């Protein structure tokens, strides 16, 4: 009986959350026309972050993760693998857990792994980087809003600002990055030509 009583409010909450989510993401788009110049300025800030080793190391354009501020190739034969998480035997999670490890100094965050090959950012111009970000066939079918949501709140993205000893965070503070994302979105999510 106890269980039954608890289930109902939970269900209501769940429905409410879903409605809220749908309203927020699809029915009232945050994207507005705005000032394309402002969007481009914001994108310049965003790209500084994306190009930092903390982000681009796991967004390689090839099949080898990069490591460290010097973005050297990951040692010990670690590769992308079929599911972006190294092989079927040794996976990223063989060594990387949900948080940075103080004992081994191995970095960690939830779903540690590589971005899909389509989201490889190495060697891209700003224009290419922007197009790649917005290309729903490559970005995991994300709308600009979903993209901003991902970059503002995803645990693995946020790890970049708490990367552990010996790793430099992105050159833009997290709040400025989030603000830039918002500005970019509010001004048409324009990317360089």
């Amino acid at each position, binding site marked *: 009986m106890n269980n039954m009583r608890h289930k109902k409010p939970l269900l209501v909450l769940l429905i409410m959350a879903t409605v809220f989510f749908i309203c927020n993401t699809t029915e009232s788009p945050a994207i507005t026309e705005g000032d394309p110049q402002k969007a481009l300025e914001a994108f310049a800030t965003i790209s500084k972050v994306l190009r930092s080793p903390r982000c681009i190391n796991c967004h390689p354009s090839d099949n080898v993760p990069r490591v460290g501020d010097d973005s050297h190739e990951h*040692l*010990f*034969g670690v590769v992308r693998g079929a599911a972006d998480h190294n092989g079927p035997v040794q996976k990223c999670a063989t060594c990387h857990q949900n948080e940075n490890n*103080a*004992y081994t100094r191995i970095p960690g965050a939830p779903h540690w792994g590589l971005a899909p090959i389509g989201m490889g950012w190495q060697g891209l111009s700003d224009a290419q980087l922007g197009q790649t970000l917005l290309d729903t066939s490559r970005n995991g079918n994300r709308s600009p809003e979903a993209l901003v949501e991902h970059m503002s709140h995803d645990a693995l993205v946020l790890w970049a600002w708490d990367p552990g000893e010996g790793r430099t965070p992105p050159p833009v503070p997290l709040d400025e990055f989030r603000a830039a994302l918002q500005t970019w979105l509010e001004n048409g999510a324009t990317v360089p030509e």
Partner: protein
Amino acid sequence: MSSSEKDIKLTSRRNFLQTGLVLLGGSAVLLEFGCAPTQRKVFDFVDSNEAPNMGLNKFDANFWIRILDDNKIELASPKVEMGQGVFTGAALCAAEELNTHPRYISVIHPTTQNGPVDPFGTGGSSSTAGLFEPVRKAAAITRVALEEAAAKIWKTSASNVEAKDGKVVYADKSLSFAEIIKQSKSIKFRKKGPALKTRKDFQYIGTDQPRTDLLQKVMGASIFGIDYELPNMVYGTTVESPYLGGKLKSFDADEALAMKGVLEVQEEDDYLLVVAEKRYVAEMAARKVKAEWTVNKKWTQEDIDAAVQVGKGKFESIQKDGNAAAVFRNKDQGKTLEFEYRTAAAAHAFMEPKGTIARYADGKMYIITGTQQPNRDRVEIAKKLSMKKDDVDVQCAFLGGGFGGRFYINKVIQAARASKKLGRPIHVLSTREQDFINNYYRPSSHHVMKAKIENNQIVAVQHDMATDDMIFDFMPAIMQKLMGADPSSCHGAAFNYSIDSRVTNSWRVDTPYVTGIWRGVGIVATSFAKEVFFDEIAEELGQDPIEMRLAHLKDEKDARHGRLRTVVEKVRDASNWKGKSVAGFGKGFACAMDRETVVAGVAEVTVDNGKIKVTKFTLGIDAGLIVNPEGVRQQCEGCIMMGLSSAIYEELLVKDGKVNHSNYHQYPVAMLSDSPEIEILLLGTGEHVYGVGEPPIAPVAPAIANALYSATGKRFRNTPFRNDLS
């Protein structure tokens, strides 16, 4: 102690240990005069002869072999098991003379107090070879004693009974060894044992046997030094200078001491030791200690490379045959080839970091550790802690790799001191970082090779090598006078090929870190320089490198020449040496004599996108009589992998006063992906057992370098080649 142990254990350890010391004293007196020709002779003797088993010649059989109540035959091995397979070799030797299958025999590490421990340690490829005579003797004496005791029980002549698989059999009757001991008032051992079996009579020696420790190692049994626990034990982690030669100036341990579970921080002359209830806490607390170090000089790699240079340091003559000086002086005739070679310093990097468990109680010290020198550890503790040697007992456990890196375990004395201060057992373990940074290393080397070619013949060769010492620090100081050149550092430096004029010189230099032995000792460097050089000479002469070597192995007074010729021919044929060559693929050859063992190898390599891949290595070896072919194969495989690793990857560098490699990401070693196809040809001859743990490493680096030349047209005169040729 069981009753059978009591009956059978008759003698004391002291007699045994003294024998070793007396022998060494004897040789020291004989060879006291240190002038160059004598030094060359002494050096040559040490360089070319099998390591003597000082201390293992005289013994009492029952000190080595015990029959336990359950009829288990326990053999105490004076040599430690570090993976080289000596326990299996020793079991085979005992089995042969006990007429008992090796599976009935268990081999153990005795402690320094209760069994035979070689006072000179385990190394120099001498473990199975060194035990071949004494273990068989001990087993034969034991067998005869048991047969005679059984005959007495049955009231018959000893010639009517026979030992077989743990029993003595007489007609249709049989008694187990343990039963015989139980039924006998005393067991009499004859001083002089029976004649030992020879090669033709062997039933176990020479057969393939799996390792005696195989099941333990496959099941993950607790057998390594750092696996042990003692009641009430605590854990210790040291804080040691990251700088070469750094001395402790000041420290602040408040933050460490405030951590839950930290018991104390002990201050010693040159390090600190954090003691905690848990290993994790000890390590994390050690990181919180802020220590300052006085550093007189911050060494750089450039300093070291400049020091390790032919022409610098102390000159010692090693070999002087014929009249090389005059031949080289004569510039009118022939052509002089001259090339320089370098090998890098290297770490042992064995998988089990150095660790020790020490318990000090009631004036006695008990040590458990994986060590190549249990007796040295015992002596050092006694000396440094002002204890009597007899109050220190060292139990060696299986070593998680040795390679010459466990001749000195800094953790032993650290743990002993700590336990004495604490009055509790302590487990002191190196972090991997400390094992890389606070350790001793294989020294780097520099070689200048010269050859004089006249009428398409090699008429003179000269090898000058500069390197730091490997063994002198472990020997009485007088040995430096006696030998001049360090016999380990310069091992294999002298030429063995039949050439009229041959000169070899050593330049003893000093580097800022402690240098010591590493698998193969000097032959890793000397064989590399010599055998790449001979490949270059063969090219100059327009001769096939193998045929040129064969033509220079014609000294009929040196039996090794004939044996090596055979090995070289077999390896040549097995490796299809003259098979067609393809672009980007190459074969290379090298051979060596290491004391009495002769080896040859052919490496096959490809270079793809700048990456070196050794695709196959064919190795032939004649190490005399082979006790366990399966064990020899393992040692050959080990040498190929370690030789490959050293040749391609390993180099220990110094930067800003520190060793620049703290872990495997900065000190890469060969991995599964580097593993070539391996073919081993065992060509054992004769009645003598020679070393196999190190000789096979000699041809590996030069054969790979020569193969790389054939694949790329580029000479590789420095190790490591670094696996990036792009």
